[in-house]
C-alpha cells in the first residue's frame, strides 16, 4: 500500500494551545487542573512536559484529545487549534478542537488519525478480550479505506517497526500473553498505524524496567524520524526528557512555570522550581554531592496559596510572590518563565 507522503515542514506549528483552563467539579470543590496554559507543538519536534504528580500534565493531554470525563471535568476556557500538515501540497484549514463536539465525527477523525495517544499502564491499555492484531486492524480500518487484508499487512508492518519479534504470529495473540514492554510496543504500533502527525505519550515508560525503557525510547526516536511526526512526551523523569525532548515545558500545580529549548532547561534553568528539580535528582558519579530537596510538599488543590503557587516552597520567595501571581516573561529569546525574579 502506498505510504502517504507528508511533507515535513519542521518548525511549523502543529497544535497551538492558548490560555487553556480545564477544571474538575468535585464534591469537595473545583479543581483547576490546568490553569491558563499556553504553548504550541511544532512539526517533527518532541515537546517534553515535565512536572510532579497532580501538576496537570496528563489533563492537558486529555484536553487536546477531548477525552476528559465530561461533564465532571471540562475545558472552561481557552482554545486548542490543530493545523493539519500539508498533504500533497494541499493546505488544509486549521481546526478549533475546543469548538468541536467531543463525540462528533470530526473530532473522532482527528483522534487516532491525526493525534494518537499512548498511556502509562501497558498492562491495562489494551482490551483483554481482543487480539492485539484485531485492535490495531480496527484502528487502521477506521481511518483508512482499506480492506482487512491490507489492514492486516499494515498491522504486521507496524508491529515489526516497533521491534516485536515474529509479528505474523504475535498479531493473533491476546494482550495477556505479552510482557509489559511488548504491550507498550503494541500500543505504540497501534498509535503509529495511521501515520499520526502528533503522538501524545503519557509516561510511556514509567511502568517499565530501565533496559526495556531504553529500548522503547530509542525505538520511538527512530520512528519519529521515519514518520516525521511530533511527540508530546509527558513524564516526571528528567532523564527521559534529557534523552528525548527538543523543547521542554515545566508545569507546577496546573500552571506552566517555564518553557525553553531542552539545553536551556538543563543548563540554565530560570525558575526556582526547575532549579530545585535539577538539584534534587541523584546523578551517578556525583555521589558526594548532597541532594538539595525542595522543602515542603505540593499544595492541596483545594487549598492553594495566594500569589505564586510555588512561593511557600521557594527559597527565593519575596513578599510580592505571596501576593500576586507572576506573569510570563521571556528573559532570553525562546525561554519563557513565570517568576517575579525576571520581571
Amino acid at each position, binding site marked *: 500500500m502506498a505510504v502517504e507522503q507528508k511533507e515535513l515542514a519542521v518548525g511549523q506549528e502543529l497544535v497551538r494551545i492558548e490560555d487553556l483552563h480545564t477544571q474538575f467539579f468535585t464534591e469537595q470543590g473545583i479543581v483547576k487542573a490546568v490553569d491558563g496554559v499556553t504553548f504550541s507543538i511544532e512539526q517533527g519536534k518532541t515537546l517534553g512536559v515535565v512536572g*510532579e*504528580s497532580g501538576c496537570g500534565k496528563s489533563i492537558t493531554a486529555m484536553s487536546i484529545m477531548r477525552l476528559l470525563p465530561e461533564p465532571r471535568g471540562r475545558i472552561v476556557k481557552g482554545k486548542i487549534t490543530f493545523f493539519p500538515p500539508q498533504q500533497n501540497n494541499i493546505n488544509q484549514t486549521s481546526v478549533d478542537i475546543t469548538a468541536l463536539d467531543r463525540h462528533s465525527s470530526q473530532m473522532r477523525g482527528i483522534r487516532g488519525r491525526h493525534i494518537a495517544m499512548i498511556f502509562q499502564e501497558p498492562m491495562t491499555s489494551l482490551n483483554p478480550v481482543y487480539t492485539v492484531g484485531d485492535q490495531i486492524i480496527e484502528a487502521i480500518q477506521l481511518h483508512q479505506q482499506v480492506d482487512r487484508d491490507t489492514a492486516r499487512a499494515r498491522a504486521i508492518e507496524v508491529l515489526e517497526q516497533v521491534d516485536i519479534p515474529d509479528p505474523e504470529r504475535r498479531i493473533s495473540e491476546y494482550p495477556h500473553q505479552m*510482557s509489559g*514492554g*511488548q504491550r507498550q510496543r503494541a500500543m505504540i504500533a497501534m498509535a503509529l498505524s495511521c501515520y499520526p502527525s502528533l503522538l501524545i505519550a503519557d509516561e510511556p515508560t514509567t511502568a517499565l*524496567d*530501565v*533496559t*526495556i*525503557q*531504553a*529500548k522503547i*525510547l*530509542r525505538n520511538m526516536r527512530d520512528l519519529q524520524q521515519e514518520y516525521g511526526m511530533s511527540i508530546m512526551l509527558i513524564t*516526571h*523523569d*528528567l*532523564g*527521559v*526528557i*534529557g*534523552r528525548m*525532548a527538543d523543547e521542554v515545558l515545566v508545569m507546577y500545580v496546573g500552571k506552566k512555570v517555564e518553557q525553553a529549548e*531542552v*539545553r536551556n532547561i*538543563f*543548563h540554565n534553568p530560570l525558575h526556582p522550581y526547575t532549579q*530545585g*528539580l*535539577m*538539584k*534534587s*535528582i*541523584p*546523578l*551517578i*558519579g*556525583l*555521589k558526594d*554531592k*548532597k*541532594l*538539595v*530537596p*525542595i*522543602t515542603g*510538599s*505540593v499544595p492541596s488543590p483545594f487549598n492553594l496559596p495566594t500569589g505564586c503557587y510555588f512561593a511557600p516552597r521557594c527559597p527565593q520567595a519575596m513578599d510580592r510572590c505571596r501576593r500576586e501571581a507572576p506573569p510570563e516573561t521571556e528573559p532570553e529569546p525562546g525561554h519563557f518563565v513565570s517568576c517575579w525574579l525576571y520581571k
Partner: protein
Amino acid sequence: MTNTDASVKDTRQVLLDVKGLKKYFPIRSGFFQKTTGYVKAVDGVDLFIREGETLGLVGESGCGKTTTGRAILRLYELTDGTVHFRSESGEMIDLSGLSKDEMKAIRREMQIIFQDPFSSLNPRMSIERLIAEPLVVHEIGDRASRHKRVVELLEAVGMSGQVAARYPHEFSGGQRQRIGIARALALNPRLIICDEPVSALDVSVQAQVLNIMKDLQEQMSLTYMFIAHDLSVVEHISDRIGVMYLGRIVELTHSEQLYQNPRHPYTEALLSAIPYADPDMVQEEILLEGNVPDPANAPPGCHFHPRCLYAKPICSKEIPQLVPTKDNPEHFVACHRAEELELIPVQPPERLLKQVGG
C-alpha cells in the same frame, strides 16, 4: 582504573551474613493443588553487610530483590541457606533456625520500610498508634512514655509531634513515608531493610526522604539494606551495591567500582540504559535482546546467557560462582568471562558535574 580507596580492606564488623539463600514458591495446579514446579524467586544469594554501611540491591522487576529482603527478615520460610545476624552481645545467630518466639526477640533489631506509602500504613490507625505499635507488640513502656517516644520519633523525621492524633489519609506521600521511617525506628533497630522506599515519591520529595535517611544513619549508626530499581538512587545512598538478575547476585562491589569498573555484562547493560538528565550526552545504550525470562523456567547455566553479548558455550552449561576478582578482593562477580572482558564504564557527564558542582 581501580579505585584505591575502595579496595582498602574495610575493618568494620559484619552485621549480617547471608549464605546460599534460596526462596522457592511452589506452583500449584490441578484439582488437588499438586506442586508442579517452583518459582525460584531467590536462587542462592550470598551477601554480607557491615555495621553502619548501606548495601544497595538493584535489579529489574521480578529479579528477587524484594523477596531477598523479606526472606532475611524471615517473613517467608526459607527454602535453603543461612542468615547470620550479629546480636548485641556480639555473637552471630543463625536466623534460619530460630523459633517464632526467638525470632520475635531478634525482630527488635531489624526493621523494614516499604515502597508504597499508601499501603504501608493501616488507614484505620492514628499516627500515634501506628508509630507506637512496635512498642506495644514488644510490651515496652507505658502509655505516657510511648507518647513521648512517638513525639521524639516524629521530630526525628522532620515532622511535628502534634500530628500524632491524625490519620494517614491526611498526609502526602512523602509525609507518610516519613511516618513509616519513624515506625521502623521505634525499637532502635540496628538493621533496616529499605524496600524501594523512594520509588513511589515525586522527584522533589524523594530527595527529602533520601536526606533524612542519610542523616538518621549517621546519628543512630544504622545499617541499611537499600533495595531499588533506580541505579542513580542506589548509587547515591549505598556504600556497596549488589546487582541481581533472576534470583542471583551477579555483581557485588563498592558503588564507585560498580560504575567505573563494571565486570558483569548485565551491569554494563544496566548502566548504559540509565537515561541521563543531559541532552548533550551522547549515550550508546547496550540494548539487550529479549525479555527477562520467567523465574519458574530460568535458563540453565548463567541465567543471563541468552541475552548476553559475550556468551560462550560454557555460559549455558555451568552456573558461574560469585567470586572476588583478581585485583580486588571486595569486588565479586558471577561471570565466566569476568577477568577477560573489557566492559564500558559510565562516564559521568562532565557538563553536569560542572553545573551542579559549581
